[in-house]
């Protein structure tokens, strides 16, 4: 039907549109680089480091180590930080400790994410479940989960279980809220359409509810992941024999600010890396989602 295809010509959306026109007045190479790399962003980071360095001229080195000091210390302690043995800890370095912390965080996010999502979706569709679980989770959402940390330390000891459980609850509450909201906001037209095409209720859940809520759920996971690092770290700070938090705790005892900077830098970089990874992965998984409708628009 050529008339239809003709009509389509004017309708191309950006995805099918020709490439963005090059920026006028810039040299060719400059244009190519500017398109691929966020120049201002990088400049911002460079400026940040410069500012840091400048501050170290004003603030005593003991309180504010220079960027170079920190980088050096990270390199030294990466594999093995000998002084830790002096505190009665097993021989370990920044890398191993970070590995411990990372493992805990990832396990907790996986478990908490699954639990929170499932219950969030269920309560979105079943009123009784919502009436029972909402008050529990809403209260848990306003109160810092940290309040449970000392209890877990007594009940479960100072091993992995306490800190992982803490983060699991944190992540579950966040995902519960996100999943429930996503299911509530999913336009009912999709489920209706599925039913008129002959889908059974089970199919409607698998083919409509879950794919339709995936983008928001992934967004919730990213947010929960960001907060999980700090919670795990402080749980380790409070009572643990391993992990980055433990290292910070030990170093704080001997007022080793440089060491703390090094440990925090490693933690921060890992957190940022995983966040970037999650952003990339999730935008791939939800690539279709620009046009997903929420009801009421």
């Amino acid at each position, binding site marked *: 039907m050529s008339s239809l295809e003709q009509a389509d010509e004017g309708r191309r959306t950006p995805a099918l549109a020709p490439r963005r026109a090059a920026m006028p007045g810039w040299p060719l190479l400059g244009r190519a680089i500017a398109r691929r790399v966020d120049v201002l962003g990088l400049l911002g980071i460079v400026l940040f480091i410069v500012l840091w360095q400048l501050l170290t001229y004003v603030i005593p080195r003991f309180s504010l180590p220079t960027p170079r000091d920190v980088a050096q210390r990270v390199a030294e302690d990466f594999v093995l930080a000998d002084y830790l043995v002096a505190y009665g800890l097993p021989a370990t370095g920044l890398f191993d400790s970070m590995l411990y912390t990372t493992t805990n965080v990832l396990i907790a996010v996986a478990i908490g994410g699954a639990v929170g999502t499932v219950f969030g979706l269920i309560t979105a569709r079943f009123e009784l479940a919502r009436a029972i679980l909402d008050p529990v989770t809403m209260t848990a959402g306003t109160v810092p989960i940290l309040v449970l940390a000392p209890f877990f330390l007594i009940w479960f000891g100072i091993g992995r279980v306490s800190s992982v459980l803490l983060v699991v609850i944190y992540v579950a509450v966040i995902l519960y809220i996100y999943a429930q909201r996503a299911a509530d906001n999913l336009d009912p037209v999709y489920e209706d359409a599925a*039913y008129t095409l002959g889908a059974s209720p089970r199919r409607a859940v698998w083919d409509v509810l879950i794919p339709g809520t995936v983008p928001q759920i992934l967004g919730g996971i990213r947010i929960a992941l960001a907060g999980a690092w700090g919670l795990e770290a402080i749980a380790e700070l409070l009572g643990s024999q391993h992990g980055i938090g433990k290292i910070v705790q030990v170093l704080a005892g001997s007022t080793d600010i440089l060491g703390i900077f090094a440990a925090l830098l490693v933690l921060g970089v890992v957190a940022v890396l995983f966040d970037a990874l999650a952003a990339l992965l999730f935008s791939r998984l939800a690539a279709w989602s620009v046009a997903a409708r929420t009801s009421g628009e």
Partner: protein
Amino acid sequence: MQKDVIVATEISREFHRADRQLVQALARVSFAVERGQFVCIVGPSGCGKSTLLQLIAGLLLPSGGTMAVNGAPVTGPGSDRGMVFQKDSVFPWLRVIRNVEYGLKCRGVDKAERQRIASLYLERVGLSHVAWAWPRELSGGMLKRVAVATVFANGADVLLLDEPFGAVDYVTKRLLHDVLLTLWSEAESGARRTVVFVTHDVDEALILADRILVMNGGRLVDDLAVEAPRPRTTDSLLKAEMVRHKHVLLTHLGLETRAPAAAGPALRVAP
């Protein structure tokens, strides 16, 4: 096969508003639709036409009266009644061709066969070139064509369309009419699907329908037979009979207050 595909008997439907007030969306509506008919339901906003369509589809159940399709009372949605919605209902998370296949997949048709059928209908609506695209890459009019292809591919006996072309521009709308009418009329007279098409656009109804049901305030107020020959063109709308129909419809919609010049044999006023 029964002659009457859809039979509505004294259908009523009430809703509770947010402030607990009762709204009577439909009050004792009765009609019957014959097999292979193209029926348009026309009426002003809030007259209950969308509600009526949802009752036929089974997405709503009546508060009173009965709705029967193919002799059996409607208890819920099913693949014998396909629906094209007012909003975009194309699943954004499936590629276009997978969307068209969806109903067939629910019925267990095997992969190769359903892809064949889906490709066929996509070609009929002129979208073969975007069969593997994502819905977000398509314009509103194209998505409507996908929806039409989907319900036809699924082989539904009864097609229900709820103001499907309201949001597209005039040119696209005329093209969509062609698509719909071609797909509908290509089956032989006896095997044609039955279509119920809700709209507030009087011209659209006159171009498409064999029969126009007029609704107002939750009641069926008129039932016009449109006997103009197909295919209908711009000129068809200018014929005397069509102009008369249009006056009747516009009067029902409150846009004209003149009584129709002569009550011809085509007018049957419902009780």
